[in-house]
C-alpha cells in the first residue's frame, strides 16, 4: 500500500489523463495507471488525454470502466516496478487477495470486463478474468458447461446421440 506519488516525481509529477466512457462520464486517472492498457499507452505517449480533451472510449460504459480503473490503479505501482524486484511477499499477497475479491462479481459485469480488458489490451486483467471463467468451466461435464454458460438445451436427437457417445466415452461426461 505504499503511496505511489513519491516515485513518479521525475516524469511530470503523476501526470493525469482523462478517459470518457461510452455514456460520457469522465474519469481522471494517473497516466501510469491508464498505461497498463496497451491501447491507451500509445495515445498517452503521444500526449493525448491531458488537459480538457479526454480519450473517448466508446466501447466501455462507466460501470465497467470504473471497475477496470480500480484494477489499474491497484496494479500500476507493481507494474512500474517491473513486476517483481522491489515487491515484497506482503505486497504480492495483497495483490492476490485484491484480485480474488475483484473477480468475485456478477456474471454480467464479468463478461463486460472481459470485453473491456480485451479492447483496452490490459494483459493482467485479461488473464485474471479469463481464469475466472475457466474456473467456472473446470470440473464440469460438457452438459453442465452448456447450462452454466446458458447454451440452449440440445434437441432430443442430439441428446440421444450424446447418450450413445457417453456409453463409450463416459469418463469425459461424468
Amino acid at each position, binding site marked *: 500500500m505504499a503511496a505511489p506519488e513519491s516515485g513518479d516525481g521525475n516524469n511530470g509529477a503523476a501526470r493525469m489523463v482523462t478517459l470518457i466512457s461510452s455514456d460520457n462520464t469522465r474519469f481522471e486517472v494517473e497516466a501510469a495507471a491508464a498505461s497498463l492498457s496497451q491501447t491507451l499507452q500509445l495515445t498517452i505517449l503521444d500526449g493525448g488525454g491531458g488537459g480538457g480533451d479526454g480519450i473517448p472510449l466508446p466501447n466501455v460504459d462507466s460501470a465497467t470502466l470504473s471497475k477496470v480503473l480500480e484494477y489499474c490503479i491497484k496494479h500500476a505501482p507493481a507494474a512500474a516496478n517491473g513486476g517483481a524486484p522491489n515487491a515484497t511477499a506482503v505486497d504480492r499477497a495483497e495483490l492476490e487477495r485484491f484480485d480474488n475479491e475483484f473477480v468475485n462479481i456478477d456474471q454480467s459485469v464479468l463478461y*463486460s470486463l472481459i*470485453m473491456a480488458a480485451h479492447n483496452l489490451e490490459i494483459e493482467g486483467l485479461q*488473464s485474471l478474468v479469463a481464469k475466472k471463467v475457466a474456473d467456472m468451466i473446470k*470440473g464440469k461435464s460438457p452438459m453442465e458447461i452448456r447450462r452454466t454458460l446458458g447454451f440452449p438445451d440440445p434437441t432430443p436427437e442430439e441428446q440421444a446421440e*450424446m447418450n450413445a*457417445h457417453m456409453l463409450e*466415452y463416459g469418463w469425459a461426461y461424468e
Partner: protein
Amino acid sequence: MAADGSRIQDDASTCYQSAAAVSRAACYLVRDASAGAGSATGRSRAALALLAVPGRFLERADAAGVSNLGGIGADQDDAISTAVSAVLGNDDLLRKILLRVGLPNCLVRAALVCKRWYLLASSPALLRRFRDLHLPRVLGYYVE
C-alpha cells in the same frame, strides 16, 4: 523438427503412465505433437479416433452453439446474453479461457461442448500453449 518431435514424444510417454481415463486426455494433448513428428504411436492414434467421434457428433450440435446464444435463460437479462455471446463468440477470448482450465481432462470436456469449442480446443497452437502453461505431469498410475 526431429529433436523437437522426440522431446514431445518423451512428454507423451510420461503422459501414457496415467490412469486409463485420464490418459486419453493426455494423449489428446500430445496429438498434434505426434502427428507433427510423423510417427504417431498406436495410442495417440487411438486418441485421434476418440476425438474424431465427438467431432462428427458435434457438427450437428453446433447449430445450437454459441452463435445462437440468444436463448440464454429467457428469464435472464438481455444485456447478459449479449455480453456472454460477445465474449464466447470471440475466438481470441474463448482461447484465453480454454487455455486456463488447468487440467487436460477439463480441456477435453470443454472440447465436447460444441463443434466450435472442439476446433479451438484441439488446434495445435492452443495445445502447445496449454502444454507450456500447464507442464505435463503424471496424473496417475496403472496398477497391474
